[in-house]
């Protein structure tokens, strides 16, 4: 009996020690599976990004927004010389069956718009942060940048929105 008990105990120990270490599953939030969030940009809560170089801001929509919208088939962008205002719509993109407003994270004057996006709207989905930029703006008030989100806060925003 004692020997059997020892054997059982040994078997238990052996089973425990021979259990493969089960790695904790890497839980990637659904939103971040699809979303790239470059560190060097600023973001708005309505899913636009801003890249500031001197007094010029380049604006586009984020990878998260581009993914959620689906294939962009049309982009109505403002002409150079148009004024844009922080928090106000400046463009419309069409995807699936929806026309969706795009909001400016900053105020200023449009100095360039992306002709490639106008002629090939899918560029927004292909490269939302590089070739898919929408407009360039001469900034009116740089202090507006302070209220935008950094990459970490934008990731949190995506998470908390339940996307």
């Amino acid at each position, binding site marked *: 009996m004692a020997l059997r008990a020892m054997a059982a105990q040994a078997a238990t120990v052996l089973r425990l020690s021979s259990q493969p270490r089960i790695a904790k599953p890497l839980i990637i939030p659904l939103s971040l599976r699809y979303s790239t969030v470059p560190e060097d940009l600023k973001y708005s809560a309505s899913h636009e990004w801003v890249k500031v170089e001197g007094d010029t801001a380049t604006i586009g929509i984020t990878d998260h927004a581009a993914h959620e919208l689906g294939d962009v088939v049309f982009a109505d962008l403002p002409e150079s010389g148009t004024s844009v205002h922080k928090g106000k719509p400046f463009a419309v993109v*069409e995807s*699936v*069956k*929806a*026309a*969706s407003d795009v909001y400016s994270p900053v105020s200023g004057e449009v100095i360039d718009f992306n002709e490639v996006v106008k002629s090939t709207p899918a560029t927004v989905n292909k490269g939302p942060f590089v070739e898919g930029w929408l407009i360039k703006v001469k900034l009116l008030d740089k202090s507006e940048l302070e209220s935008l989100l950094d990459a970490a806060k934008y990731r949190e925003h995506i998470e908390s929105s*339940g996307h």
Partner: protein
Amino acid sequence: MSGSKPIMRLLRLREFPIFQQLQVEERLLRDTQCNWCIINDGTAPPSIVMGISGKPELLLDVRAVIQDQVPVIRRFSGGGTVIVNSDTVFVTIICNRDAVPNLSLYPHPIMRWTEQLYAPVFEGVPGFQLREHDYVLGSLKFGGNAQSIIKNRWLHHTSFLWDYDNIQMQYLKLPSKAPSYRLARPHGDFICRLKDYLPSRDLFLQTIVSALQVHFIVQGSTIDDTGQNMPSKSPRTTKILTSVQLDSFLTDCNPKV
């Protein structure tokens, strides 16, 4: 206030011109903060309505449209081209972000929610589903959908084919971008008439209102409540194409033999 439903203001119209309806909708979406449902039972005159990016030279038999003086409207929402008349039933839903709990304001989630909304309306009718972006019975489309989404509000409108005129359908070309289930079928083989599946038009409209009442407290409103004659706070996108504009697309068309 947990468990309370949001209020939905219901505007019932009949044979209201579609251009004016779209203008009202655009205004209600952008300039008001209420939830709205607009049901327009038919429209006159028969009109062609394109989405925001619609190109007449690609979507229409422009020569025939000009010859027959059919109004062509470019609306503020996305989506495709329809020809509408007194046999079309229009249902538009305009909501605040919090009107539907946990709804993500993007096209697919909104579309899927509307499928849930309309499911009771088509209870007992085999094959109702949202297929790609269309409401279908099996593989036959019976409603065209389009949306407009702004920061904290969204609009989803549908033109339901209670019946349709085969001759009028000929104004529409086969679009270059079509859902995969269409399989290059011409209009007549791709769409169906709801009157062939539902007992009555009035009952159809009533069940839509009942379906809304599952989600909202529905309150009747009048056209005057929409403030349609008040000045707009923001630019309007919905336009009727002029004859000069339509003529300019003729150079892109093949001449009729």
